[in-house]
């Protein structure tokens, strides 16, 4: 992917805003921000952002490409949509955050160790496999994503909860084998593949 990255740098030179507008989901809204900061103030995880949305927008305009794309900030988004409903300029901030995160991932320059980034990827892989999420495997994969030792620790830490869920019938070991899936797996996967091709094509054209 990183040659895609260099390609993009080549193509857009210092004009990061144009790059974002062309390649990031809802990116062409960035220029509409008037820096009121209501989004930054409305985020439930505000304190955890190195750069809140409105500042990210300003950084994009100022051409701070690496700082933005490598930032962990967008990964803080919990999709609570507070920012969207309060934004006086109608910016779909939540989606722009997701878009930036995805674009960074696509370019392969996202913050590697960022746990939510890892979970988000796991989640996608998990659902892409069978068309439906397998919560048990999702959990298991999650706990072991940082290797066995770490995983056992986390798993044990979560064991209580797991047991509780099991007892309540809200977690099923049946899921370990087989588990829920869409019937038309073939069609489903073909659809996803096609969609991915089309999306890649869009970005590649941009290249």
């Amino acid at each position: 992917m990183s040659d895609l990255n260099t390609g993009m740098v080549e193509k857009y030179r210092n004009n990061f805003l144009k790059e974002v507008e062309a390649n990031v989901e809802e990116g062409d809204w960035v220029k509409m921000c008037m820096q009121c900061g209501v989004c930054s103030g409305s985020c439930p995880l505000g304190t955890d952002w190195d750069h809140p949305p409105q500042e990210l927008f300003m950084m994009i305009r100022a051409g701070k490409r690496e700082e933005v794309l490598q930032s962990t900030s967008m990964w803080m988004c919990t999709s609570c949509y507070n920012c969207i409903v309060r934004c006086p300029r109608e910016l779909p901030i939540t989606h722009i955050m997701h878009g930036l995160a995805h674009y960074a991932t696509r370019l392969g320059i996202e913050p590697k160790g960022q746990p939510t980034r890892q979970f988000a990827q796991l989640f996608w892989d998990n659902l892409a496999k069978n068309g439906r999420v397998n919560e048990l495997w999702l959990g298991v994969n999650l706990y072991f994503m940082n290797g066995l030792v770490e995983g056992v620790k986390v798993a044990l830490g979560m064991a209580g909860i797991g047991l509780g869920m099991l007892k309540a019938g809200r977690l099923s070991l049946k899921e370990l084998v087989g588990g829920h899936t869409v019937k038309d797996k073939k069609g489903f996967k073909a659809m996803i593949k096609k969609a991915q091709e089309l999306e890649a094509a869009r970005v590649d054209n941009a290249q």
Partner: protein
Amino acid sequence: MSDIVATNQTILVVGGGISGMTAALEAAEVGKQVIVIEKTPSVGGRVTKLYKYFPKLCFPTCGLEINQRRMAANKNITVLTMAEVTDLQGEAGDYTATVKVSPRYVNSNCTACGACADAVEAEFDDEHNYNMNKHKGAYLPHNMAMPKRYVIDPGMIGSDDAQKAKDACKYDAIDLDMQEETIELKAGAVVWATGWRPYDANKIQPYGYDRIANVITSVEFERLMDPFGPTEGKLVRPSDGKEAKNVAFIQCAGSRDRNYLKHCSRICCMASLKQSTYVSEKFGDDADVSIYYIDIRAIDRFDNFYQKVQDDENVTFIKSKVANIVENKENGNPVLNGVDTEGYNRYANEHDLVVLAIGMEPSVDKDTFPIEIKVNDEGFIEHDEANGGVFAAGCSSDALDVNRAVQSATASALRAIQVVNKVAQAEG
């Protein structure tokens, strides 16, 4: 009321606020016949509810006195209060307006002696004070009310109190059987000066105006300063009557926001700068004012005033649209959450009182407007040939401060005169 003479050389002025008054006076003082239609019981409009004007910090009452004197002295002006235009037909030089006149229950015999008010017990919300207090069922809208004639609140009709009021009047001025009237008036030109209303603060949910006692609007704040207002001029907050020394002003409360009013209401920045001086006026150096803003729009020479306020170290400016307000349940203080965007500083600031610099909503309703007219998305009447002989004045034409509203009204008077002069020529 049938004795009103109106021809197609008459200029109809809809709205008796500062803009309507100005348009009427300018036209009448060059000899034109003018009829002013005012919805409330007295003329003067919003400015009668203001404590001071920016940037001079002088008193609106002063100009009101002069304008009212001019009106009283001018035989070319007829004022209909408690009246509304319900329909308007025709074209430049030949309009017919249908006007609904609500009963005041007090006729021109009234000497404003006040005997009726002394006689009654019943009280009703005082609209002049944005319903922050109550007035008697028989009342004079305010000290400067013109016409200086009492009003019987319709809510009192049929009650013993109403009868008491009638009995107390020696001059047979109270007529409890007065009925709503509908009259038709001819006019050659119409000046539309229905002004503005404060945006409904309840709609700005993140600021909890409907949930937090100590969040009020800028127009309410003005009333607090009036010695005859709801707090007799004391700057105290609603929840517990505590002196409001630490006051926050939130700019663009309802303005510049696609959720509410898309436009910039122009006056709010200057209004808050002005109101910051109220706090100093009351508490001197104990005043602690914070102004949360996106851009301070102290346009043209108003900026000199902005610079003065900036020099006051009791006033702090924070570039931030406040995200939301919650109440500190212990002391009733509003707590403002947000981010100061000049360098990303997160805050949770507690204040005694929060004033929402409330936006200006035009009182022109595109859909119910009685005649074909060009109104923009913001609800202001655009100046357009297609409007024929109907001309917007003041805040019907844009979000304007008083000075610009009067300027606009003066211009609209000339537009109206152009039409009626043409009619006069035609009729020879």
